[in-house]
C-alpha cells in the first residue's frame, strides 16, 4: 500500500513538473522543474527495483546535463515576455504540426503487433534476472559487456566522434593571446633572467 502511495506521489509530481517545464514563464524555472522531473523519475526507478538506473539518471542528467542547461539558460539575455507575445500568432501552425505528429504516433503504435515467435525469442535472449539473487549492476554489466560488447563500443565511438566534432567546430585560433607555458617558466634559469650590473656611483646604467 505504501508502495502504491509513493508511486502515485512520484508520478503526480513528475507529471506536474513536466507540465511546468513548458508552462513556466521564466526559462530558469523551467530548467529547475526539469530537474525535479528527473528526480521523480529516479524515484520511480527505485520503486521498480532498478536502483542502478536511478543513480545513473541522477548522476548523468541532473548532475551534468542539467547543470550545463542551467549554465546556458542563466546567461541568456533575452526579453522573454517579448518572445511570448507571438504565441497566439503561431498557435495554428504549432497546433497543426502537433496534431500531425499525434496522428502519426497513433497510427504507428495502434497497428503495431509483434509476432509471438519474435516475442518469445526476445525473452530467451534477455531473460530478466531475479533482483533478489543478483544485483542490478552485475546483471546490467553481464548483458552489456558479454552479449552487446561490440554495440557498446560502437556507441562509445559515436559519442567520441560527436565530441571531436563539437570541439573542431568551436575551436578558433586567435592571434596575440598570451598563454602561460609552465614548463618554460619552471625551466628558466638564473643566467637568462638576471644580469648583475656593477653601477658606478653618479653614472647610472646606460
Amino acid at each position, binding site marked *: 500500500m505504501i508502495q502504491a502511495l509513493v508511486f502515485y506521489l512520484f508520478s503526480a509530481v513528475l507529471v506536474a513538473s513536466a507540465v511546468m517545464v513548458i508552462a513556466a514563464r521564466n526559462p530558469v524555472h523551467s530548467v*529547475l522543474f526539469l530537474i525535479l522531473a528527473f528526480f521523480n523519475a529516479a524515484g520511480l526507478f527505485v520503486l521498480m527495483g532498478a536502483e542502478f538506473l536511478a543513480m545513473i539518471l541522477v548522476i548523468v542528467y541532473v548532475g551534468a546535463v542539467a547543470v550545463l542547461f542551467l549554465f546556458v539558460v542563466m546567461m541568456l539575455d533575452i526579453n522573454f515576455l517579448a518572445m511570448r507575445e507571438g504565441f497566439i500568432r503561431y498557435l495554428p501552425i504549432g497546433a497543426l504540426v502537433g496534431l500531425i505528429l499525434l496522428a502519426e504516433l497513433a497510427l504507428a503504435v495502434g497497428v503495431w503487433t509483434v509476432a509471438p515467435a519474435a516475442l518469445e525469442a526476445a525473452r530467451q535472449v534477455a531473460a530478466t534476472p531475479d533482483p533478489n539473487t543478483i544485483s542490478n549492476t552485475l546483471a546490467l554489466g553481464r548483458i552489456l559487456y558479454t552479449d552487446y560488447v561490440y554495440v557498446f563500443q560502437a556507441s562509445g565511438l559515436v559519442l567520441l566522434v560527436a565530441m571531436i566534432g563539437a570541439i573542431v567546430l568551436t575551436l578558433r585560433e586567435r592571434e596575440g593571446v598570451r598563454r602561460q607555458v609552465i614548463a618554460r617558466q619552471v625551466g628558466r634559469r638564473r643566467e637568462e633572467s638576471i644580469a648583475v650590473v656593477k653601477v658606478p656611483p653618479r653614472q647610472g646604467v646606460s
Partner: protein
Amino acid sequence: MNFWTNIVWPLVITVLLILAIVVPVLIGVAYLTLAERKVMAAMQLRVGPNLVGPFGLLQPFADAVKLMFKETVIPSGANRVVFVAAPMLTFMLSLVAWAVIPFDAGLVLADINVGILYLFAISSLGVYGIIMAGWASNSKYAFLGALRSAAQMVSYEVSIGFVMITVLLCVGSLNLSDIVLAQQGLWFCLPLFPMFIIFFISGLAETNRTPFDLPEGESELVAGFFVEYSSISFALFFLGEYGNMILMSAMTSVLFLGGWLPPFDMAPFTWLPGPVWFALKIAACLFVFLWVRATMPRYRYDQLMRLGWKVFLPFSLIWLVLTAGALVAFGWVPRTA
C-alpha cells in the same frame, strides 16, 4: 493494529535513527567551525576564540544564536522562491548523504547496493544550491561566484568519478560496507596512494575550500555566491559547507582509510570500537582540510581549470587503466556472486 505495527512503528524508528545520525553531525559541524578557528589561530601564533565558555567551547552556540537573531534581508530584485530555496537545498544535501555511510559493521541506515553511486549523485547535486543562490540574488558578484563554482565542481567531479571507479575495481562491489571490508589488512591509501591524493585535492575543490575557494573569493567577489544572504539563510550555507567537509572526510575514510577498521587487527587497536576509529579518521582528514587553509594561497582560475582537466583527469584515467591491467595480469580481480 496492522496499520500501527507495519507502518507507523517502522516510520518512528526510522525517524529516530535519522536523528541519531543528524544530531551528532550537526554538533560536529558546530565544533568544526570552532576547531577551524582554533587550529588556524595556533598555526598563526594567535590564541583564537577563548572567552565564551571554558577554552571558548561555547563559541559555536553564541555564533548560532547571533545569526538566528539577525534580520533576514531579501533583496528587492531577487527571485524570492529560488533565493529562499537555495540555502535549504545546500543544507539538506549535506545531510542526506549520511544515510549510506557505514559507521560500523552493519551500523548503517540504508545499506543499499549502489551506495557509492548514491554518494556521487548527492555530491554532484551540491552545485545546484550555489548556482540557484547566485542567480536568484540578482547581483553581479553572486552570479560570477556561481558561474565559477559550477564550472569548478563539474570539472573536479570527473576525476573524483575515476578515482571511485579505481576503488570499485579493487573491491568488486558498489556497497560501502563491502568497500570497507575489502580493506581488511591493507587500506587502499597505500596501494592506490596517488589516487588518494587526487581524491583529497578534488575533494577540496568540490567543497569550495582553499586553495580552490574562488566561488567565495572574499578579496575579489566580496563573498561570492552568498553576498546577498544574511541571518539564518547565511547560516544554512555555512552549515552546509562545513557539513560537506565532514562528508568528504567520511568518504575519504571509507574509500581509502578503511572506514571503521582499526589500523592493525590486534590487541591495543581493537579495544576502541569501530565508530570511534571512524570518527578519528574523519577528524584527521578534517585537520588536513584546515591545515591546507592555513597554508595555501588561492589558485588562479585558469590554473585551477588546468589542474583539473590537464593534470588530474589524464592522470586518474591512466592510473585506472593501469590498475585494471594489474588486477587482470596478476589474477587479483575480485570475484563476486
